[in-house]
């Protein structure tokens, strides 16, 4: 049972931590090297983890494909892989026990959001090398639900099956969820009336409260965020409960630390930083102090649902995109969210960091929409002030907003050049 008290969680964590550190040291040449300067018997609690160096994406890349392996090749029964942005994919291996644990985690997640054996669960995550499809598949099967393994694509058929088989739970990416809703409407099916979708479990990409609103207004009754990644077994690491106030991490399987991505210093609960995860139960490929590059906040107080497993807040962005302004971490995603909900603006913006004397300043340059009302100058000034106020509420620092004419922000194919750090260019960082 996963309903553990805080005390029980800590006891299990400490016991499993000692075991996994010893196991990794004894079975993986990679970790043996990494821990060479550490007295591994001194690692007894989460606090002691600080003594251990981080494991990074670069480690995984440099040790491609199976350098982190901690079991004999004969014990492996599955591989998955996630696409790297450059070069080699990240390959992960599973033992039988790993697959059982993964199944358990995904079953817990679905159970927590209310999925039962009576549900019809349609899984529209990709099946294959990507962990999404199979992870949810195992979890839903374990619960005894009726699984429709549609995988991705063939959107019209997805909707037909949803309608004809009475799907009650949909698992897919949030963007595909929105696309399914749109396509249903084009087929003259109103998801809220003609379909029976009680629950949507959306993951594999960061999404916002605005998207939740859209999904719940147009598609499913309740939309939940789920977190995971191939290195950490796949989906199932953390999920929102019915209170939708952060994602519960299964702390008997994972230890979460939040660090300052620049200094590596461990931060307190409530502070924003990079999530570092230690897998406590992985056999084939343990990840010890793995830097996820995902930015979030850990909340350790008890949730209204009564579960003692700590929560991480929605993923705010990747460390690659982070800016530090006057000591505070700022993410483009936070700024984007404010811009998207403000009328009169286009979704095109640029963020410019600069330093005057010793003071950092943050300029947000955003295009007005072409239909922006321009009759009165006060409207323009009000819009600017409103945006500055809302950015201050959201980021906790002062920003300077510059409204620019439509189509004045340079467009680019692929990843937009949204951040300009003049401090870097001037050699001040």
């Amino acid at each position, binding site marked *: 049972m996963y309903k553990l008290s805080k005390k029980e969680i800590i006891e299990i964590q400490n016991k499993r931590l000692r075991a996994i550190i010893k196991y990794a040291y004894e079975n993986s040449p990679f970790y043996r090297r990494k821990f060479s300067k550490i007295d591994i018997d001194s690692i007894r609690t989460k606090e002691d983890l600080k003594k251990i160096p981080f494991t990074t994406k670069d480690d995984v890349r440099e040790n491609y494909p199976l350098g982190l392996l901690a079991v004999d090749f004969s014990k492996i029964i599955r591989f998955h892989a996630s696409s790297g942005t450059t070069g080699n994919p990240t390959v992960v291996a599973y033992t039988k026990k790993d697959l059982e644990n993964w199944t358990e985690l995904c079953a817990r997640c679905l159970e927590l959001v209310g999925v039962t054996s009576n549900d019809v669960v349609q899984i529209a995550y990709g099946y294959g090398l990507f962990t999404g499809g199979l992870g949810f598949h195992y979890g839903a099967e374990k619960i005894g639900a009726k699984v429709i393994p549609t995988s991705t694509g063939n959107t019209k058929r997805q909707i037909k099956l949803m309608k004809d088989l009475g799907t009650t739970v949909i698992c897919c990416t949030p963007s595909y969820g929105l696309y399914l809703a749109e396509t249903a409407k084009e087929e003259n099916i109103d998801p809220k009336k003609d379909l029976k979708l009680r629950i949507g479990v959306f993951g594999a990409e960061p999404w916002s409260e605005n998207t939740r609103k859209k999904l719940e207004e147009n598609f499913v009754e309740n939309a939940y965020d789920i977190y995971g990644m191939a290195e950490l077994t796949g989906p199932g690491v953390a999920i929102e409960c019915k209170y939708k106030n952060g994602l519960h991490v299964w702390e008997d399987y994972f230890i979460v630390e939040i660090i300052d991505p620049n200094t590596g210093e461990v931060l307190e609960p409530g502070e924003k930083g990079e999530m570092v995860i230690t897998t406590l139960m992985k056999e084939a490929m343990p990840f010890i102090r793995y830097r996820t590059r995902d930015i979030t906040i850990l909340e350790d107080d008890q949730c209204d649902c009564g579960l003692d497993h700590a929560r991480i807040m929605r993923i705010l962005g990747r460390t690659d995109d982070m800016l530090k302004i006057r000591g505070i971490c700022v993410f483009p995603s936070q700024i984007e969210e404010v811009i998207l909900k403000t009328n009169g603006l286009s979704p095109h913006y640029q963020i410019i960091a600069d330093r005057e004397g010793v003071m950092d300043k943050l300029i947000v340059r955003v295009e007005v929409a072409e239909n922006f*009302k321009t009759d009165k100058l006060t409207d323009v000034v009000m819009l600017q002030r409103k945006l500055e106020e809302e950015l201050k509420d959201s980021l906790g620092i002062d920003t300077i907003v510059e409204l620019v004419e439509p189509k004045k922000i340079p467009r680019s194919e692929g990843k937009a050049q949204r951040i300009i750090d003049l401090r870097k260019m001037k050699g001040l960082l």
Partner: protein
Amino acid sequence: MKQLSVFLENRPGRLANLLKILEENKIKLLAMGIAEAGNYGIVRMIVDKFEKAIEVLRNANMAVNQADVIIIDLDRLTEVAKLFGELGINIDYAYSMNDNKIVLKVDNEENAIKILNNKGIKFIA
């Protein structure tokens, strides 16, 4: 009367660019007022080819809007301002036009037109 207004950044060359587009499309400017605050400006215009002006400015990716305004003779302004004042009609802004005329934007056009008609004051709306 329909007025055009365009949002511009308050930078050198932006106004010239706007005027160039109008000229290239043979649109004649009859009146123009500029309001600016810090980095922004709003340019308000009366032109001879209203629909065409909207089209070319939008094609040039400008944020364009329209509003109804009233045009009166400049020498009746004192009288009109007093009348409006008495009736609680506010003049949001005004700018002068060729031919000794002035463009007024009021917050209650319907009442403004009514009173101008009643008093026999010549206007274009």
